[in-house]
């Protein structure tokens, strides 16, 4: 029994030793840890980081934490054990992720954060986030213009426990509330979900048939709301989303949804890898830890240039 177990262990050790040199052959391995790729936004992050890493000669290890801080912590253990050179992370919670990033730092592995910040500074080497507030203001300004600065509208909120949901809503209102003729008649969460947005939109439309516009905290909810409006024969209602997904791009090109705001997820992930590379080679990223990336308004004019969260020229 004991012998068997020892044999098994050595077999595992040999196979691991066999696997390691293949990492070492390149510049080393970079771990890319993101939430679930069932949201194309996070998929774009992972793809962008992986593409840049490959370009710079790194191997990649792509991991998914499903917004579970505990799972994220385990993934960090695995990445540390695998001897990665750096970690690119879209984290699973501003407070809950600090310890994991610290753990990697203690093991001599630098982390580069994208999309969402953590509450501590000096632990990660970079924290590159989209300027959600600036993006929301862009979207809101376009929304107000499309509405002709007047009329009843509804707002679909994201998951209320998510900071970005609050920041976007704040950005929307800081612009829209300056126009006294813009009247919000309904505000509900649809938890970032297309299915929920569909039913919530139908009910809101029943309660407030005079709705002229809908501003949504993200693109999936905008898609759900537009499907409901279409079913109700109310394609005249102006819908504005946030994220810059391909689905909404197609809808904009087909004359459905009017506008969205692109968070440059792909570019952001690439930037994080570039900074990781600089840090590994020179011992410094050469820029501040906290960096904000501006969002870009997408409407009928530039929608055709949008592809998986990146604008092509």
């Amino acid at each position, binding site marked *: 029994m004991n012998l068997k177990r020892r044999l098994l262990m050595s077999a595992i050790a040999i196979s691991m030793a066999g696997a390691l040199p293949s990492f070492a052959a390149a510049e080393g391995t970079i771990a890319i840890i993101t939430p679930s790729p069932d949201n*194309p936004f996070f998929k774009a992050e992972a793809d962008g980081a992986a593409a840049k890493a490959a370009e710079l000669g790194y191997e990649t290890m792509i991991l998914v934490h499903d917004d579970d801080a505990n799972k994220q912590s385990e993934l960090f253990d695995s990445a540390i054990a695998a001897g990665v050179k750096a970690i690119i992370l879209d984290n699973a919670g501003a407070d809950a992720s600090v310890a994991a990033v610290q753990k990697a730092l203690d093991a001599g592995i630098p982390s580069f954060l994208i999309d969402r910040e953590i509450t501590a500074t000096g632990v990660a080497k970079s924290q590159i986030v989209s300027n959600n507030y600036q993006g929301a203001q862009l979207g809101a300004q376009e929304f107000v213009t499309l509405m002709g600065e007047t009329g009843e509208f509804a707002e679909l909120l994201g998951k209320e426990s998510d900071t970005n949901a609050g920041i976007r809503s704040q950005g929307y209102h800081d612009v829209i509330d300056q126009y006294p003729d813009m009247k919000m008649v*309904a505000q509900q969460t649809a938890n970032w979900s297309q299915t929920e947005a569909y039913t919530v939109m139908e*009910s809101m439309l029943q309660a407030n048939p005079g709705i002229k516009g809908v501003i949504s905290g993200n693109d999936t909810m905008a898609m759900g709301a537009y499907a409901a409006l279409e079913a109700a024969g109310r394609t005249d209602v102006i819908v504005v989303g946030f994220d810059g997904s391909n689905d909404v791009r197609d809808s904009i090109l087909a004359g459905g949804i009017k506008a969205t705001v692109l968070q440059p997820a792909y570019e952001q992930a690439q930037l994080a890898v570039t900074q990781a590379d600089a840090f590994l080679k020179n011992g410094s990223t050469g820029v501040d830890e906290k960096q904000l990336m501006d969002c870009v308004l997408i409407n009928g004019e530039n929608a055709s240039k949008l592809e998986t969260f990146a604008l092509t020229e």
Partner: protein
Amino acid sequence: MTALTAPKSTNANALLLLLRLRTFVALILVLAFFSWAAPNFLSTANAVIVSKHVALNALLAIGMTFVIITGGIDLSVGSIVGLCAMVAGWLMLNGINLGIGYTVWFNTVEIVLIACAVGVSVGIVNGVLITRLGVAPFIATLGTLYIARGAALLSSGGRTFPNLSGSAEFGTLSFPFIGAGKILGLPIIIWLLVLVGLLAHYISRRTTLGRHIYAVGGNERGAQLSGVKVNRIKMFVYMFSGFCAALVGVVIASQLQASHPATGETFELNAIAAAVLGGTSMSGGRGRIGGTIVGAFVIGILSDGLIMMGVSSFWQTVIKGVVIIAAVVVDQAQNKLQARVALQQEAANK
């Protein structure tokens, strides 16, 4: 003796009747409340919209009711919804590649049938796990919950299948009609609920199959000894539940004209809630299709009404929980009262 207990027992009987109709009473209460409190709640158009929303959960709950009556549980329905939505989306956009340079495309009817077959297949897997391999229903369907959800995610690599508006070439232009179309002024999903509801009611009240479903849940050993093919009955209920879930998946894909692999997450909990609210006993043997549908309406009207009032979704969740617990507490009270009335009547008859 008789003279003394008679008025008391009439009171008890009246109370018992009220308790028996509690779901219906709850329905009338929520209806009355929202008609008063929510703007535009009481209108034909809104009644249709609410019914449309309720129908999705009610369909799942009908399948769930049969399963629970046999003493089981089906946790996989939400994942089956997602999987079948993805199957429909896949067939619309990709067809089936035969690998020799040919791709088979399907028309709307075939897509619906294939999606339903997939749902029933997951039900068969549940049934086999439970009847042949002796896995407890909670565990078996928890397993298929994960497997079906994983399969849904794998089917698209996590992406949404977008723009399912159909194409004339493959005869799928009618696909959006399932979700958006109307027959005699009512959305198709409502007709589906009426059809499946009537069918399930008929099965449960008028057929041997129905009697056997109750018998299995009431006393499985006894049912087996009196010649009921317990395993077959169990297979049927999980297949039926899978079928109902598949219908819901197809309808959602059609409504959104897109299918997302996370579709239907936690739907199983809403379905269980509707069944329990409608008086289905979690220990099996007791439950009514009609009750379940009314239960689904109570939940649906609550959530739609609160949305129309503009109440925070956090409160909606709390209220839903309170209503479910209240329903079970009342259920317990009814059982006790029923036992007491029966005892009194027995005593009176002596």
